């Protein structure tokens, strides 16, 4: 019987070795180890053995079963792995085909520039304030030291609705409104972004509607050198650490002294080129120390308080920073233009 068992083992192992698919392996398992399998058949004859032989043969039979079982399991793992491998191979895809698109929009370039400036000044302690786009003649002009018949009113031909109401020509009225709100009682820092309107024919450099950001700091002992310092921080953060600024005297009815701020030309680094018309400098914004008449009309005593104000055009800044060469692009909303500035 021992020989019989060994023969079965040999035969079974050979068979397992030979088998190449999972089904056949399963059949092989049944053939040898199943209820009607050859090993089971042989073991049925155990009863005929002597009590001394039984444990010996039993031992051998268990070994044979274990050996065959192990072999089958081993083979099973091999075949299963092979089958999985085959399946995965069949599932291969072309990873170079495009992915499913995600719909993403984005902000308008002007919003991007405005928010960048807002955040910069918020960091320096400025509040963001807003005001109406339809203004009174009083807040747009008179409270800013531009009485009726003032020649400087010609500088900004305006869209009047009635004799007393107009589309604001600058965001400066928010200065006057803020001062009157605080009643001359405390110092404050604020910036005011917004839409403004002027009687200009739309072309590459003019737009009847555009945006402006006004800044105002009023307190005791505000100095002109503070203005220079703040504008310097702004210019470097906005245009790059290597930019230099230059202040030139200028004229605005609501500031005295008044300044115009230039930054050194990025293209030629101040040597002079076609971009800066040979001067080495590019005009960025207007600013100045708040005119005592403006402080007074705002309820602030010019003997006690002083302040500085600045005003800039986000369109101009965007044009310089991003190389946009036609102001009308900001209002055409060509999707090919808008998309260019959606990246982070």
């Amino acid at each position, binding site marked *: 019987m021992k020989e019989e068992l060994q023969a079965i083992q040999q035969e079974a192992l050979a068979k397992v070795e030979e088998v190449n698919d999972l089904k056949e392996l399963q059949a092989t398992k049944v053939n040898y180890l199943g209820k009607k399998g050859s090993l089971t058949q042989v073991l049925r004859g155990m009863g005929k053995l002597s009590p001394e032989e039984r444990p010996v043969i039993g031992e051998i039979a268990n070994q044979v079963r274990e050996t065959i079982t192990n072999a089958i399991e081993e083979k099973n793992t091999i075949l299963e792995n092979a089958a999985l491998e085959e399946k995965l191979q069949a599932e291969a895809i072309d990873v170079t085909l495009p992915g499913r698109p995600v719909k993403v*929009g984005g902000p308008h370039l002007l919003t991007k520039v405005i928010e960048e400036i807002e955040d910069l000044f918020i960091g320096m302690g400025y509040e963001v304030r807003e005001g109406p786009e*339809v203004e009174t003649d009083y807040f747009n002009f008179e409270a800013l030291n531009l009485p009726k018949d003032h020649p400087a009113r010609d500088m900004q031909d305006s869209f009047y609705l009635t004799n007393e109401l107009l589309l604001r020509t600058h965001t400066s009225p928010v200065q006057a409104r803020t001062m009157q709100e605080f009643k001359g009682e405390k110092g404050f*820092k604020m910036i005011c972004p917004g839409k403004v309107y002027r009687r200009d024919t739309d072309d590459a450099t003019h737009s009847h509607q555009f945006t402006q950001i006004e800044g105002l700091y009023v307190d005791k002992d505000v100095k002109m050198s503070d203005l220079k310092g703040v504008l310097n921080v702004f210019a470097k953060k906005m245009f790059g650490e290597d930019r230099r600024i230059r202040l030139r005297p200028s004229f605005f009815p609501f500031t005295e002294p008044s300044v115009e701020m230039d930054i050194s030309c990025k293209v030629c680094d101040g040597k002079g080129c076609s971009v800066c018309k040979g001067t080495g400098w590019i005009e960025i914004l207007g600013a100045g120390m708040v005119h005592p008449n403006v402080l007074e009309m705002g309820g602030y005593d010019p003997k006690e308080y002083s302040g500085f104000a600045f005003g800039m055009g986000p369109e101009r800044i965007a044009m310089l920073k991003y190389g946009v060469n036609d102001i009308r692009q900001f209002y055409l909303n060509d999707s090919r233009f808008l998309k260019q500035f959606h990246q982070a």
Partner: protein
Amino acid sequence: MLVSLNWLKEYVDIDGISPEELAEKVTKSGIEVDNVEYIAEESSNVVIGHVKSCEKHPNADKLNLCQVDVGEETLQIICGAPNVRQGQKVAVAKPGAVLPGNFKIKRAKLRGVESNGMICSLSELGFSEKHIPKEFAEGIFVFPEDAPVGENVQPILNATDAILEFDLTPNRADCLSMLGVAYEVGALLDKPVKLPSEEIKASNEKAEDYISVKVESEELNPYYGAFVIKDVEIKPSPLWMQNYLLAAGIRPINNVVDITNYVLLEYGQPLHAFDYDRLNSKEIVVRTAKQDEKIVTLDDVERTLTAENLVITNGQVPVALAGVMGGANSEVTSKTKNILLEAAFFNSISVRKTVKATGLRSESSTRFEKGIDPNRVKRAGLRACHLLEQYAAGTVLDGVVEFDVLDRTEKKVEMDTKTINARLGTEIDSDEIATILERLQFDYERNDENFVVSAPTRRGDITIFEDMLEEVARIYGYDNLPYTLPTGAGTAGGLTKNQTLRRAVKNYLEGVGLMETRTYSLTSEAYIQKLVSQEIKDLNPQPISLAMPMSEDHKYLRLSILPELLKTLSYNLARNQANLAYYEIGSIFITDEKELTKQPHEQLRLSGAVTGKWLEHLWQQENKKVDFYVVKGIVEGLFEHLELPLAVEQAQLPDMHPGRTASLLLHDKVIGFIGQLHPLLEKEMDLKETYVFDINMEAVLEAHEHVPSYTQIPRYPSVTRDIAFILDEKVNAGDVKATIEEIGAPLVKQVQVFDLYKGENLPEGKKSVAYSLLYQDPEKTLVDEEVEKSYQSIIEAVNEKHQAYVRS
């Protein structure tokens, strides 16, 4: 203001500084120099020659053979210019001369005859077109008879001059004169100013015997000075004067007119010369015009006047529009013998009104409008008389006949070193401030740190301390100011709640695929009433139009963002950009006043417009077209994001698709709408199928008050039940959902539509809508019976309310 540097040199020493350096200095001190221009390019060895004879070339019809005396020798020159004549003084490029473009002049033979040089036109001498007098535009330049033979032409033609273009701010009217510029440049270079001569020869005759002056409106004309000059000889003015006028952009006419213009530019004081004999009167009366009074001005246009206009009359009729233009009836002509010269001070506002009414803006009126120096009025008259003596052979009669109530006092401005430094952030000492005042040529009294400055009348812009602060700062140099940062009490700064929320809304919209736009607030008559939301219409808004629009396209303040937004869609479609998802946040302008008396309400709105494909993934054959539910999803998502309850109700609006439009409601109030554009509007605006939304942002921002806080995550499992109802097609799925939510509360936490079916296996006019119900009890695990009970009561209620039954 065009500033000729050669002319400027007559008053201030600018040697040793290049035009470009000077331009830079002036710019940095407050007057922008826009341009530096040279009159002519370099040339050498060109002298004045005298054409002794001029004959036809023996072998060429169009050429002339000239003998030209150039001082040391006489040159035979062949000249092709049509205007060369015997006896002329001309510019001769001698052999060896180099003309612009490195053009060398050599001895040559032309058609067999020797030619030793060239007679030049101004353009051959490198003059730019605008500096060439018209009469010499075609052909050679001819000098006045007294031009010195053999002399270098360059200085005589002012060829080496450079012109700086000053872009003056309104406060610097003082630099509308060469003298004003001289004071400015003198201050910058620390150089004195040399004043021109106003000397006049004595005369036995008195001007007052020839003219009297009466001013009826002394407020508008506080000074009027009349000079009488007899026996003038009208002829061209001297070449140097013509050159300076050309450099300043003024065309020379004759000596009398040129002298008044020259003094205008020199002193900044407008003058007017009348033909004394043509005045037909011995009096000048200045008064306001009578209503509908007429005058023919120098440009031969008849002007009808009003009481707003100040006129100069001969006692009867107007002979000039004060400060603006003379009358044709008293114009100086080539026959003029005697002159009445006016030097006056006219009120700037009055002149501006006349300019506005007549549209006549001139070098004179501009100066009156911006304000002239009261101390220079009479002096300018004297200066002109001096020049008329010199260059018009006139006899200036003794005395000036004047009306004079003009205030010539200088403004006193107090300042002190401490305040100056406190305001500028500098440490300038008092002596340095004194030096600055001296450079500016301002008189002052000083008591240690305290100054009282007398602002000269030429600087009418200086009236208060801050004006002097700017003067000190700019001469000290803005470059020399230190950089400091404010040291005052810190403020927090930041965005308001409203501004923060607006940014969140923008981020959401951009995150779900919309692009932000910025359109115009001004729209056209055709669009002002279009796509206005119902709740705005209910306010009876009146169109607000500009008093003087520049175009029909931008005439009215918008009542909806949508029309202009849709225009940008159409713009893009025309450029093959078909898939667009746009939004804009901005104000609309609401008033119910027909005649606006107060500011309109500016309401912040959010509008969106979407067209084309929403998603496109070609190789997976996936093409999701935009439809109502895409846009609705965006809006629903926004309200979910803001934790605000949104209700949507079928609605009708003009210009919107009648079956695909809905009102948006927040707390039972309409706050906007959503839907597809009416196909007719789509067609009118060249659009494809387009879906829009329009929301009152102001209401949304106000309603928002949610501050996120932690809610316990449910610990007990939830149960999902699905249910499909067969409904009449007209029944809204949303109404059924509302019933389910109402009956299912509080256990039903969420109801979602997950299937919609119409067609086979369903009766005509019916649809099946399937809902997924989420049951949850935060306190315990749900029991089957509870859910079943609720489920049954929902079925009953829906059946009763919507005549719906469960699909099995």
